[in-house]
């Protein structure tokens, strides 16, 4: 196996400093929709200017470089043990190069490890063995501000009058956007998982962020719900950074998971406007980023 560390390092640099094209396009169109001369439009302008500076100077888009979450799909010929060690050393090196802020804090002592390495869960690495020869690693950098406003509901929720149906999902999703206000760095994106246990539900709600923003759920009823939630969330007029305006949520993705008869969780992950994700694909000597 070739030494993948420099490639993973580049994946981290790219993700921290350069927004994916679909996200940037979406932010640009949000800026165009805001009223001329409004605070909302000024905020969107600063956001876009910042995105350009970060890319040009190769500095992190946001100082909170977040939790590094890796999704690894690997052919059987790879060793996950080796991949873990490569990813961890690339993360430490990326921290030294300031592509990542030292973000791993020991919860018991309060001490920052200084290199973004904690125990097994920091950085987060998910593995899935696949057929074929191609190794694909997706990286999400999810900041603390937007992670803090994620919410998990259990349907039915009598407080919100939300029952165990899609209408209930719509209600809790709008409540989550309301509760978040500008704290999650709006305009944001919603990843919603219906079902699962508490853990898998949250995990799936983040995994949907790997898909292109233009895609929708294959079931037209769920696709329609995704669009409806986005549309109604924008009626809340929370706006960019919570300072009022037309763009609060720029996209919603929903995934359904099997659940226990007793439980129906709706897990909502909020991704800030600094929606940092990139992918590396490796087949033999061929390395591709997107």
């Amino acid at each position, binding site marked *: 196996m070739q030494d993948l560390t420099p490639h993973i390092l580049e994946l981290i640099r790219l993700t921290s400093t350069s927004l994916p094209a679909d996200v940037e396009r979406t932010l640009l169109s949000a800026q165009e929709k805001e009223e001329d001369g409004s605070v909302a439009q000024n905020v969107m302008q*600063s956001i876009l200017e910042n995105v350009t500076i970060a890319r040009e100077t190769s500095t992190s888009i946001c100082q*909170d470089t977040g939790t590094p979450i890796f999704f690894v799909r690997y052919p059987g010929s790879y060793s996950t043990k080796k991949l873990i060690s490569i990813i961890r050393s690339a993360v430490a090196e990326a921290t030294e190069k300031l592509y990542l802020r030292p973000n791993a804090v020991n919860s018991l002592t309060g001490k920052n490890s200084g290199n973004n390495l904690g125990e097994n869960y920091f950085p987060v690495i998910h593995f899935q063995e696949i057929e074929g020869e191609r190794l694909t690693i997706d990286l999400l950098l999810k900041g603390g501000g937007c992670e803090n406003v994620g919410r998990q509901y259990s349907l039915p929720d009598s407080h919100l009058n939300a029952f165990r149906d899609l209408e209930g999902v719509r209600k809790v999703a709008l409540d989550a956007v309301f509760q978040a206000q500008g704290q999650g760095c709006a305009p944001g994106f919603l990843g919603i998982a219906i079902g699962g246990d508490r853990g898998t539900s949250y995990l799936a709600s983040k995994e949907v962020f790997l898909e292109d923003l233009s895609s929708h759920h294959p079931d037209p009823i769920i696709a329609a719900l995704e669009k409806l939630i986005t549309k109604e969330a924008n009626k809340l*007029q929370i706006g960019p950074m919570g300072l009022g305006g037309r763009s609060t949520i720029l996209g919603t993705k929903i995934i359904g998971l099997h659940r226990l008869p007793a439980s129906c969780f709706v897990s909502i992950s909020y991704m800030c406007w600094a929606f940092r994700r990139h992918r590396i694909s490796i087949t033999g000597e061929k390395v591709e980023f997107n």
Partner: protein
Amino acid sequence: MPVSISIPISNESIRALHVGDSVLLNGIIVTGRDAAHKWLFDRFIKKTVEPSLKDKEVYKALKDLLPGSLIYHCGPVVSGLDTEDYKFVSAGPTTSIRQESYQGEIISYFNLKGIIGKGGMGEKTLKSCIQTPAVYFHAVGGAAALIAKSVKRVLGVYKLEFGMPEAIWVIQVEDFPVVVTMDSFGKSFHEKVLENSRLMLDRLIN
């Protein structure tokens, strides 16, 4: 057009500011977030923890720096940690509301003229803004590379043992762009957005 304000800021300048005003900040400010607020609060305001000798030295320095100045809710990316030739690389605001339990008392205790952060703060802070007086300046969250350009010099650092993001950095800023979203007359822009969105939420889900 934004108004330019020099730090230290006078009470008169603070009273002249209203929600919605765009401001360019110039002068020396101090970063502080979760760990710094709790540390200050426990040792010097509530006095539930006995400060060490080292803590007292930092406190003394802050006692000189903070009156008339601002605390910036920020956990920056800083270069030069090995050479101590510090430079802010990436420095947007962090969510302010987490400091709500401490902020009001810290503002009045140190006679701060305000806070820079994102997302706004609550009633206790607003009350302290009226009394002290002080204001809440909103910076664009995530606009880290952009804001880092306003940080001209890093003058020093305290409590680096909290880690790079949580340390107390003393910085000189030039034309740091912010908007007043909570003023010294009890007005909060965040309160307005919250109330409007609450009314709309009720319509959408009931």
